[in-house]
């Protein structure tokens, strides 16, 4: 079935540099540096990336960072908890806007 998302497109990511190589180089250098061990371990960074990938619902990122998390020693229970963290933030972000709703409703209501 035809689909906009094809797994074989993921390894072609670097082709994005063909029309704007300087910008792509800067991006990929930055990207590589971000995921190196720093104050956070590479394993922790992969867990964050996996969680964010679910928030932005990017199938390429979910594929890449599921593998990365496993290769860096995380287990599925940890990965699932990480997804719950962003789900809570995402849901909470919607819910907390309910206060705006209440403020406006209160102002308009008798």
């Amino acid at each position, binding site marked *: 079935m035809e689909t906009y998302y094809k797994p074989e497109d993921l390894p072609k990511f670097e082709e994005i540099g063909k029309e704007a190589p300087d910008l792509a180089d800067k991006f990929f250098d930055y990207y590589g540096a971000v995921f190196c*061990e720093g104050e956070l*371990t*590479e*394993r922790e960074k992969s867990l964050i990336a996996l969680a964010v990938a679910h928030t932005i619902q990017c199938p390429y990122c979910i594929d890449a960072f599921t*593998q990365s998390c*496993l*290769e*860096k*020693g995380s*287990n*599925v*229970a*940890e990965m699932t908890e990480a997804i719950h963290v962003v789900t809570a933030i995402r849901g909470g972000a919607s819910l907390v806007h309910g206060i705006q709703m209440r403020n406006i409703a209160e102002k308009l209501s008798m």
Partner: protein
Amino acid sequence: MDPAKSSEITNTGYGKESMAIEPFRQTLATHSLKLERDQTTTLQINMGLLCNQTCRHCHLDAGPGRKENMNSETADQIADYAKRCSFEVIDITGGAPELNHNLSGLIERFSSLAPRIMIRSNLSALNDGKRDHLFDLFKEYGMVIVASFPSLNQAQTESQRGTGVFSMSIAALKKLNKLGYGADGSDLELNLVSNPTGAFLPSSQSETEKRFRQVLSKKWGIVFNNLFTFANVPLGRFRDWLLKSGNLDKYIEKLSSGFNPCAVEGVMCRTMVSVSWDGYLYDCDFNLARGLPMGGRKIHVSEMAGPPESGSPIAVADHCYTCTAGTGFT
């Protein structure tokens, strides 16, 4: 795949179900590398394929139903061979070597033949309640214990090694710690081995060791000396699982694309000779699993006057990509 490239590709031995990859031998030639034996310092002994576990990553297809188990005549011939050579390390593996009745006698004989004697244990065979004398024997002879402990997570561990193995492993490690294994200032060395619990490569050894040390100590009060992370070799039961789960092509591609020419110099087969339960010699345990004898013909340990010669070629096949991917497998 590039059609021009595919014409150069030979049968990889992984079967028709697998994608073709550049043969390992050809990759070595492309990098102007030769895989030859160095001075042999380690004698690895495979006591047999009998095992109490049926691990899904096992390259030897070991398990409770296997009949291949070293007899006392072969054990004597191997001990005589170790006497003829001066090995620095004797490395005992299986299957589960604890299940072989000749183990105690071999350890006693080896103790004066090499300064470092290692035993690879799955922990559950050692701590099954029927072999408590082995704990004392290992301690008495200062055996280095290399224990399988793939993951800090019970589900991951048991998906690879079987139900109940996680708690049995924790109990065995605690018992070894109690004997002094892994403790600060103790000569009794306890090392852990973590193999990935699926079709992915192992994590960084130093980072994993740090995390295992922290979690094992905090949760169970367990200490150990070193942790090694090793990739799984696509042979035996692990290969069957890769095939069945549809992961074989990608896994092998991952291993071959991770080829690191610098890792070739440090691979274990350069300094090791591996002897099977029936006394035949191989360059490593993976070649034993694959049926690739040392020097291309079956040589029995009783025929060997000394260690294999430096400079002699090592038998290679495509599973060798496992040991040359990334930082390598030593």
